């Protein structure tokens, strides 16, 4: 470990200070089709501020500056396997350095020679009133359209898929009906030929940049933004800058900047590390790299359980899921993160990597206390390993005020091993019930080797009272949380005994659609 962290921020840096040699000191990206290079004076600069203030592209709006309203939605184009892949993202909490090597598409770029089909569809359907949310919706519908098959008529999105793509865009005026119709109208039409030209021009540029192995190292007056391209380099940076913030999707970190007014002097971006992006599906485990996004986990985790599928489709919004990472969801140590309780119930383990090498711990052991995780200085989270077991029944439910894009009041996850009508083993974990995601050990014990009957349920419910003393906050009272925990256990019982007839939210999930 490097020492003397105190003077670090003030010490003037020179190029030779870089732990990594082949570096580039400007962020390079395509703005529409225009290649742009920006020397980052402030590593905390958001893409939105850059677009609105520097580039004077004011079609992209700020409605909240915290990723919750979608008014700032842009498309990020990325070159993957020789194709360009577009996804919607919230520019307000994306940092400019994160778009290095990528294409940024704003509402202005869609309408280069008059409004395009999506823009026209929005107008045709009377889908704008005050219009402030409209550019964001246009971008989200564009992303939806681009995710569908070539044959527009054959691959129409159903309502659930539209919702999954648009729930991150708030509109206060229209009541959404006309916007949904506009999405349908636009998706039924073929993409304009000009789009083909636009994206292939962009692809050529991005593919060219991909060949350039230089890593981003932007030292500005207000700090450093670096994007190492190997874990070895990352470890060196970490050693060199003990005060560094490891940056993944910025869906938490972005808010520290825009909402808490924090100035982060050193940001180490993980998005250029191929090692952390892999998703390995082995026969008995699933290994998810730390920077795999929530969206990318959807197909694999949804295959494990329909409840997980439902959970993922309401995690944040599509814009958030596209950038938020699994590692970030764990590393932030939040007591109300959605993946940890589910993964803990599934028996997941965590791979941590530091100077001293790798270590593996049970996921629940990572969460020590509120704001305190088992992460050593200079260490980062490499992956999470989920065992694949056929002999468990898995259930999880998230309860919040609003179905989409809300933080859980309570999340209960239940992995049950049942044999001949009795519980062999139970792993139960809750979010929102304690200072960390926490297993319900008393409850698990009360279930072990017990028949699936009312008595067992009552005893297990009582045991939950010993497991948790939840707090009251704006999302829920302590009493409600406690009551919900027991009721979710009851739901699990009903499901195991086949007595749970239907879910309130059945039909809220897009069936049979690949979520790229």
């Amino acid at each position, binding site marked *: 470990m490097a020492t003397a962290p105190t003077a670090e921020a003030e010490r003037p840096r020179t190029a030779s200070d870089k732990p990594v040699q082949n570096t580039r000191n400007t962020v390079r990206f395509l703005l529409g089709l225009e290649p742009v290079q920006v020397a980052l004076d402030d590593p905390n600069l958001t893409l939105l501020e850059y677009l*609105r203030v520097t580039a004077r592209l004011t079609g992209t709006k700020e409605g*909240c500056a915290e990723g919750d309203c979608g008014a700032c939605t842009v498309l990020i184009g990325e070159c993957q396997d020789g194709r360009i892949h577009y996804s919607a993202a919230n520019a307000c909490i994306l940092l400019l350095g994160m778009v290095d090597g990528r294409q940024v598409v704003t509402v202005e770029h869609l309408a280069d020679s008059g409004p395009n089909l999506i823009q026209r569809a929005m107008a045709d359907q009377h889908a704008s009133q*005050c219009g*402030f949310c409209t550019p964001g919706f246009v971008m989200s519908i564009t992303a939806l359209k681009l995710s569908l098959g070539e044959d527009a008529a054959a691959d129409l999105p159903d309502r659930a898929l*539209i919702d999954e793509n648009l729930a991150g865009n*708030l509109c*206060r005026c229209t009541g959404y009906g006309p916007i949904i119709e506009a999405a349908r109208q636009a998706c039924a039409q073929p993409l304009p030929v000009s789009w083909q030209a636009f994206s292939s021009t962009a692809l050529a540029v991005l593919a060219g940049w991909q060949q350039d192995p230089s890593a981003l190292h932007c030292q500005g007056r207000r700090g450093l933004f670096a994007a190492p391209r190997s874990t070895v380099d990352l470890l060196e940076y970490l050693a060199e800058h003990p005060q560094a913030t490891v940056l993944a999707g910025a869906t938490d970190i972005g808010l520290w900047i825009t909402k808490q007014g924090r100035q982060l002097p050193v940001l180490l971006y993980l998005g250029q590390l191929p090692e952390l992006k892999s998703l390995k599906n082995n026969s008995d485990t699933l290994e998810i790299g730390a920077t795999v996004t929530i969206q990318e986990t959807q197909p694999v985790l949804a295959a494990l359980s329909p409840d997980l599928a439902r959970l993922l489709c309401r995690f944040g919004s599509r814009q958030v899921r596209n950038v938020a990472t699994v590692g970030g969801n764990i590393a932030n140590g939040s007591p109300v993160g959605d993946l940890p309780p589910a993964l803990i119930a599934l028996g997941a383990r965590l791979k941590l990597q530091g100077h001293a090498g790798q270590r593996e711990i049970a996921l629940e052991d990572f969460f020590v206390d509120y704001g305190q995780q088992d992460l050593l200085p200079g260490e980062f989270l490499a992956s999470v390993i989920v065992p694949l077991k056929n002999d468990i029944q898995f259930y999880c439910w998230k309860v919040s005020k609003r179905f989409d894009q809300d933080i859980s009041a309570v999340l209960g996850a239940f992995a049950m091993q049942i044999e001949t009508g009795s519980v062999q083993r139970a792993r139960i974990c809750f979010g929102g019930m304690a200072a960390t995601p926490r297993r319900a050990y008393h409850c698990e014990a009360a279930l072990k080797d017990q028949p699936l009957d009312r008595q067992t349920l009552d005893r297990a419910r009582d045991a939950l009272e010993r497991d948790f003393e939840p707090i009251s906050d704006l999302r829920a009272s302590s009493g409600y949380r406690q009551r*919900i925990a027991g009721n979710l256990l009851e739901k699990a019982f009903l499901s195991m005994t086949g007595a749970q*007839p239907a879910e309130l939210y059945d039909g809220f999930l897009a069936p049979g659609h690949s979520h790229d």
Partner: protein
Amino acid sequence: MVSSHPATAMTDSSQIHGTPGQALQHDSALKHTTGEALYIDDLPEPAGTLHLAPGGADSVCGQIRRLDLSAVQSAPGVIAVLTAKDVPGTNDISPTHCGDDPVLAESEIRFFGEPVFAVVARSHREAREAARRGQIDIDPVEPVLTIDQALAAGSYVSEQQQLQRGDWQGALQHAPRRILGRTVSGSQDHFYLEGQVSLATPGEDGGVHIHSSTQHPSEIQHAAALALGLTDAAVTVEVRRMGGGFGGKETQAAQWAVLAALAAVTTGQPVKCRLDRDDDMIMTGKRHDFSSEWTVGFDDDGRILAADIHMASRCGCSRDLSDPVNDRALFHADNAYYYPAFRIRSDRCRTNTVSNTAFRGFGAPQGMMIAEQMLQSIAHQLGKDPLDVRKLNFYGKNQRDVTPYHMRVEDFILDELTEELENSSGYRERRRSVDEFNSSNTILRRGLALTPVKFGISFTNTALNQAGALLHVYKDGSIHLNHGGTEMGQGLFTKVAQIVAEELQVDLKTIQITATQTGKVPNTSATAASSGTDLNGMAARNAAQTIRQRLTAFAASHYKVLESEVAFRPDRVRVGGIEMSFADLVMQAYLNRVQLSATGFYRTPKIWWDPNKAQGRPFYYFAYGAAVTEVMIDTLTGENRVLAVDILHDVGRSLNPAIDAGQIEGGFIQGMGWLTTEEVVWENDGRLATHAPSTYKIPTCRDRPEHFRLQIFSRGENQEETVYRSKAVGEPPLMLALSVHQAITDAVASLINEAELPHLDAPATPESILAAVDARRASTTP
């Protein structure tokens, strides 16, 4: 989805593009979608523009002991720091000038986050960063936060008001049946997508020009003039469009405009004040939350004999618009029902929270909710379908038709409208299928409700019911249209342009819609009370008719024909035997020195109000509608889902069915949010806990059910002489959402067959629904 009907005013078989009745796009629709529509923060900034951020108290109430702004002063980029001492004129932006709404707090903090100083810096971010560094020490006193605390402490912003008629006490006493109930509805943040923003530029003679995102430019103008010690004439306020208003940019826009103006005048540079979302939610007022107790007496059929209603609302730390808001609540505590005898009282509580303000519906939703809960309770006790009890209590025609404020209801159409909706929605079959579903499900339960809306149209303050317009016709025949109404997304500019197009029979594209500007039309009223089109449409029509009359007189004398031989036809004018284009006639008129610019004016007829007697005709007419909502709840978690909505709404003769439908759907969903997910939470220390969309949840796309059938009442026609017999549509549809709350209550009630209706507060969050479910289930255990 939307039914329309031809406009009455049509004279020709061919139509101009723009005739009232056509479902035209919003004038900015394409610009919205391409990002070309400019909001204030998008305008190119004048050279040297500085940025302002307010600095708020981080304590709830007490006298300011010490204000240390040295760290703010020395923060990077800071140009100036302003406090109350820097306000050269009157430090008050109260809409009633009662002196209780300082631009910046001088000696006393009254709510958490109250602005005390303002930082002017080179960038928005520097201003915000510096604003965090203020040190405001106060001598804290015990705050009054809730309605109950205020009632106990006798803390009010103004006097209690009441309406009463007949021997309500006797009637209640002798009524065969009585129910005592409580109705609680929560606050609501406007959550306009564009936050508060102003850009002020200093001008000559100490004057200032202000771009403000406001529904009330004239009030901003006056507030800025007072605060800066200028005349109104020295201040110009302009607004092209807002990114949503909903009442939240009526009085609440003033502070930021005045601060920007103050800073501009002080520094001599343009200054922009754009509130961050958190500041916006913390520092600006919201919907009044209400807590009301009532007793209703009725007969065995369910007919109301008497009611005694006591409502109390949380007004926050100042009066603002709380008096008219609460008056409107009083005026709508009947909704659509006749009360033979009653006493209705309204207490306006002063609390140490941000001052509550106008919000779509303006107190009416809170008042109506009481009526609807009474009706549902009565039906439940009698074991009747609430719809039948509602119908029984509807206002009569020529009898049982006098409202609590002594105005006769002369245009009641809810019998017909409700019947049509009852049939088109299949209400009775739906009721049976809901019952059937519930008989075979214990965990998931369904509920159904049909609720009506009757909403009074006009400002309750009679003087505000006036409007002006300004119309210029240029030599090429193009038309510059201006009026006092503001565009916040509601489509006002489009509708008014349609009216002018109709009057002059010109295509809509010849009419240039322009920004509202106090220099063009003076002394305007707020664009509020749903009256934007009624008032400004009429004023613009008046101006257009003046132009048309001048052109007619000119053509008659110039071409030597009778005035009756001059006819404005689609895109042309017939003068005797010849036809010419509108532009040609205009050019002729110009050459012959005819004035081609006109002002227009309108004042609503018939209305009056005597506040001392609490009597009058505060409303020109009523707008009506009804909705059927079906919901499902999960009785283990309290989660709910709206399954189906059927709406039939009266807009008179629609000026633009597409825009009207947009108002109806948008209003409904906004009302649904108020009653379900949108919970404004205050911490015990007076801090607002829900000050961003991360914690405050308005409906999303998914919350809007696929089954959403919206019809405009095809027989609608305003009995009064409004513009082309249309009706106002901005606010009334919000209250259609009361059906959502009633349907949820219905679902909870279905659990146990018991005479008492479950008690369910609004918003019906999963937590409050589960509490109601648990209480319901517990009520069987003796």
